Each structure stands twice: as C-alpha cells, then as structure tokens.
C-alpha cells in the first residue's frame, strides 16, 4: 500500500515537472526569436533609407547640374526617413 501511494506521488510530481518544463519551453520558444529578427530589421532599415535619399539627390543633381545641393538635402531627408523607420520598428516592439 505505501509503495502504491509512493508511486502515485511520484507520478503526480512527474506530471507537475513535465508541466513546468513545458511551460518553460513554450515561453522560451515564443520569446527568443522575436527580438532577434526585429534587431536585424533596424540595422538595414536606416541604411536603406539613407541610400534611397542619396540616390534621389544624385539623380536630381545630375539632371540639373547642381551638385552638391540636392545630394546634401536628400541625404539629410534620407537620414530622417531612416530614423523614422527605426522609430516605427521600436514602436511596434513596444506594442508587443
């Protein structure tokens, strides 16, 4: 009789341990990949916006022969757009 009780006890504790392990696992699985991906997003986002700004500026300058006025203006606008992009990613991170 005591041995059965003990076994039951063991089974209960095992169930609890499995539950706990599963809970811990699911939290890890849900949390781990998300910030990793979001951080990767941020880095490219700022560079891409700067490149687009620079590209537009160079195109306009080549067309009107006004180098370096528009290149400078659009590079600054591109940097602002990059920061705006990063700001949006950060905001979506905060909402999550």
């Amino acid at each position: 009789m005591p041995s059965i009780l003990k076994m039951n006890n063991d089974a209960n504790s095992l169930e609890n341990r499995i539950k706990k392990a599963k809970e811990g696992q699911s939290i890890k699985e849900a949390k781990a990949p998300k910030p990793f991906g979001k951080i990767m997003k941020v880095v490219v986002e700022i560079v891409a916006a700067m490149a687009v700004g620079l590209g537009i500026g160079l195109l306009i300058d080549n067309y009107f022969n006004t180098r370096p006025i528009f290149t400078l203006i659009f590079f600054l606008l591109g940097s602002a757009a990059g920061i705006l992009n990063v700001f949006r990613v950060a905001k979506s991170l905060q909402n999550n």
Partner: protein
Amino acid sequence: MAADNPIDPIHQFEISKIADIQLGGIDISFTNSSLFMVFALAATMALFVIGLSKKSIIPNRMQMLSELSYNFIANMLRDQVGDQGRAYFPFIFSLFMFIFFCNFIGLIPYTFTVTSHLIVTFAFAGLIFIAVTIIGFVKNGLGYLRIFYPSGIPIFLAPLIVPIEIISYLSKPISLSVRLCANMLAGHSILKIFAGFIVMLGFLGFAPLVFLVVLYALETLIAALQAYIFTILTCIYLNDALHPDH
C-alpha cells in the same frame, strides 16, 4: 584568383552557365542559380505531392510538415492582414516556401545559395513593392496618397514630412532585399572562412571545427528566420496597402 588559392570563400557565389541560351541578343542562359531555383521548386512540390498523397486523419511526418507550413502562413496572414488578405495567400505561401527552400538547400555543402545574390532578392522585393503599390491604388484610389501625409500634422510641416515619407516608402524594397541577401552572403562567407581555418591549422583545427558546428546551427536558424522575416514584412506591406489609415 580562385586558381592560386584553394581556400576561396567567395567562389561559392560564382555564377556558371550550364546551358548557353541566347534569345534576341538577351542572355537567358540556364545557370547554376537557375538550377538551384528548380531544385527549390522541386523540393516544395515534393513536400506537398508526397505529403498530401495519402490524406490520413492521423498524419504521417510529411503530411504534418505540409499542414504545419500551411497553417503557419495562413495564421501569419490572418494576424497581419486580416480576412481581406486571404486572396493573397497563394502568393505569400509560394514566396515563403521558395525562399525557405532556397535558404536551406544553400546550407548543404557544394550547393549554390540562390538568395545570396542581391538581384534575385531585389527582383522579389521589387515585384512585391510594385504589386503592393498597385493594390493600394486599386483598393483606395487616390486616397492611398494619404500614407505620405499622416493625419494630425500641421500644413507647414508638409514640405518636410512628405519627402521623408516618400523616401521611407521607397526604401522598403531595398531594405527587404538587402536584409535577406546580406544575411545569406555574410553567413555563407563566414562558414567558408572558418572551414578554411580548419584546413590551415592542421591538427589545431579542432578549435574552429567546434566553432563551425555552432555557427552552422546559427546559420540554420538564420535561414529559417530570414524566410520568415521576408514573408512577414510582405504581409505588413500588404496590410499597409489594404488599410492605409492604420
């Protein structure tokens, strides 16, 4: 260069022609890149044809995989875009499976990574960008232009905000394509460089070998993660086009 140095980490990205095809002066040769695109396509087809050939209530592994991937993308689309996005499911799903298999086939030694070439990823991103812009204008008319001028901004700031928003909008395909390409390119180069260390160090090579195993695990994660990120960002852009007010 490659001939003098047997350890050349960039060699794996070289395009070589398998069948030379010229059409009206345009080079449309079948290259190793095309070959591995066909492999990715064949792998996707195989997964679904074999996986869904025996539709049992208790699924076997292949059926599980195909159903899981279907549910994964369907849920992603529903979460990001809502019910309106269901019409675009075939495109999003094909996109995910293709990039996923391109990334994973590239991890096998002696294969070619299609997604490590910027032109491939940019073709995808550019196509998505043009399609999303057209969808935005078709669904919202000229009201779609409101995304360049968010509500609640004083009119005197418009000359500053509108160009910034336009640049931000135009940077989407570039960041989308560069992210995927750079991750694949950097990851595979690093793998090759560390593999080179093993050969160069001789007996001491076990140290980079251990590191290479860890790095390979990380690359496997990145291969899946980048396919996921590419797809989820496509969903987000699609959502912006369908609901520009949010």
